[in-house]
């Protein structure tokens, strides 16, 4: 099975959304390059995710690995894929650039000695190998990258492509590996759901974010209502997270998440460089700020100079009136 492999990630028993995007990009790459593209899913119950991945790819291997049940999965998944890759010789492995994908890619790279091109925003093919588009230095520069040898691992950012199933679904084959994984296991003792933990902000089409100007936990209701009216999710700055007004899962920026929504609407956010690096590639940026000289005014498409507690509810009301 040479060519390109997409590592399908399991989330909530099914296929993670990021994997549908990676698969769509990989299929396009395979068509350009004239290479086979296959999917691989490793898990205690891989079938459902594998079936979903087969909507995008001609061939998917579902590897059942009971060890991922009750243990952290990434290392085990990587070990299984590394063993298969050594035997079947794919040239390129593609994964999502989220926590699971990064962990898996890191272990795979170390085990196989293959290089990694990370956080792809697009893929191409040139001179017999893939090219990887990246946005670096906080969006200041776009680079095109390649592997120097014939093999490599690519992680792909969320929203790099819109997921599009193939014209006809592919086949799923089942495989059971031999022997036990060798790397040490990490037990999952408990899984805790937290209220307000995680709208998946990296995948959202619209992000409405609140900063220090929101003033408190209560202030985030204004942000939430506008987000709902726009069919979007709530983001935040580190200032708001550090103040304890909102969970870290919502933080955008250098040490938070990187988002590339169609619309990013900032409420009471100054636009500090460490925040900007997480959102400046949004297609449209709108800001509401009392201060016309806030740095965000330099890179937003539209700035409303005013008090967010007046402007945001007015926008929410106007949107509701519009949709009737």
């Amino acid at each position, binding site marked *: 099975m040479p060519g390109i492999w997409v590592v399908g990630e399991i989330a909530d028993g099914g296929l993670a959304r990021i994997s549908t995007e990676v698969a769509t990009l990989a299929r396009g790459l395979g068509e350009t390059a004239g290479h086979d593209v296959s999917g691989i899913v490793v898990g205690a119950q891989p079938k459902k995710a594998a079936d979903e991945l087969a909507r995008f790819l001609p061939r998917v291997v579902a590897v059942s690995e009971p060890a991922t049940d009750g243990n952290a999965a990434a290392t085990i998944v990587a070990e299984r894929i590394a063993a298969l890759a050594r035997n079947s010789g794919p040239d390129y492995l593609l994964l999502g650039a989220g926590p699971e994908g990064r*962990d898996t890619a890191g272990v795979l790279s170390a085990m196989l000695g293959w290089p990694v091109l990370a956080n792809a925003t697009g893929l191409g093919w040139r001179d017999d190998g893939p090219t990887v588009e990246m946005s670096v230095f906080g969006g200041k520069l776009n680079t095109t990258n390649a592997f120097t040898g014939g093999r490599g691992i690519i992680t792909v950012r969320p929203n790099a492509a819109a997921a599009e199933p193939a014209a006809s679904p592919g086949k799923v084959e089942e495989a059971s590996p031999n022997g036990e994984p060798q790397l040490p296991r990490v037990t999952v003792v408990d899984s805790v759901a937290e209220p307000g933990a995680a709208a998946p902000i990296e995948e959202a089409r619209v992000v409405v974010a609140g900063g220090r100007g929101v003033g408190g936990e209560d202030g985030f209701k204004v942000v939430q209502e506008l987000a709902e009216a726009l069919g979007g999710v709530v983001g935040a700055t580190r200032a708001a997270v550090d103040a304890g007004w909102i969970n870290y899962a919502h933080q955008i920026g250098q040490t938070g998440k990187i988002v590339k929504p169609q619309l990013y609407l900032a409420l009471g956010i100054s636009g500090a460089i460490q925040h900007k690096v997480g959102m400046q590639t949004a297609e449209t940026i709108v800001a509401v700020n009392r201060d016309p000289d806030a740095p965000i005014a330099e890179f937003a498409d539209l700035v409303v100079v005013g008090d967010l507690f007046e402007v945001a509810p007015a926008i929410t009301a106007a949107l509701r009136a519009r949709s009737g």
Partner: protein
Amino acid sequence: MRIVVLMKPVPDTAAGGERLGPDMRLDRAAVPAVVNANDEYALEAALKLTEALGGEVTLLSMAPASAPDTMRKALAMGAHHGVLVTDPVLEGSDTVSTTRVLAAALKTLEYDLAFAGADTSDGGAGVVGPGVAALLGLPLLSYAAKIEPDEAAGRVRVRRLSPTGYDVLEAPMPALVVCTQALGEPRYPSLKGIMAARSKEIVTRSLSDVGVTPEEVGGAVAGTKVLEATSPPARAATEVVREPADVAAERVVAFLAARRII
């Protein structure tokens, strides 16, 4: 409790001058270096643990020979020792080389826990920590929001951030923990800390000291290259709205409708 924190000097994003050199590699001389933010969170978590449980924190960096300036900042926060692996051959290393060298260096140290940042602000791949764990056969506990070692039991518990909250992970020590900002704000170095850092030792190790042959690592064998770099198209000029809230709101809605966002 002995904790090793993997720490990378990175260009200061706040200085804003990052650029590629003529060789298409990050020009590390163009911008002042700082401690990578996620590594600062790792260090803060390590300091809190050793303050509570006793023990020492060692910084481990693979970096250019100028790195001690940056390592001093981390020593001023309270780390006890610094180990710097530096070698001209390592310039232009990719993540595979970095992972190998850090793993080899970590192997020469004694520790209960090794901490790495979730990613770096320059490379940003987030693969080095997991790779080091794999090479050394250490349990990997990633995306940590809380770290609770139990010395008597020789085990560590970590809250790993998940899409819906967190998972509680547990593994025997020694183990490698990948750290996030959710661990808590890093401290500022105190004046006393800054004074003390001046006399703390930073041990420099060459490649051969850590048992890596120069042929297997560095820029010459890097598996990735930059082909082209372009500036993204400039954003259109900002439209500024200064009307009262209800009028401003109508303008925002019209603007979003014109762009087919709503």
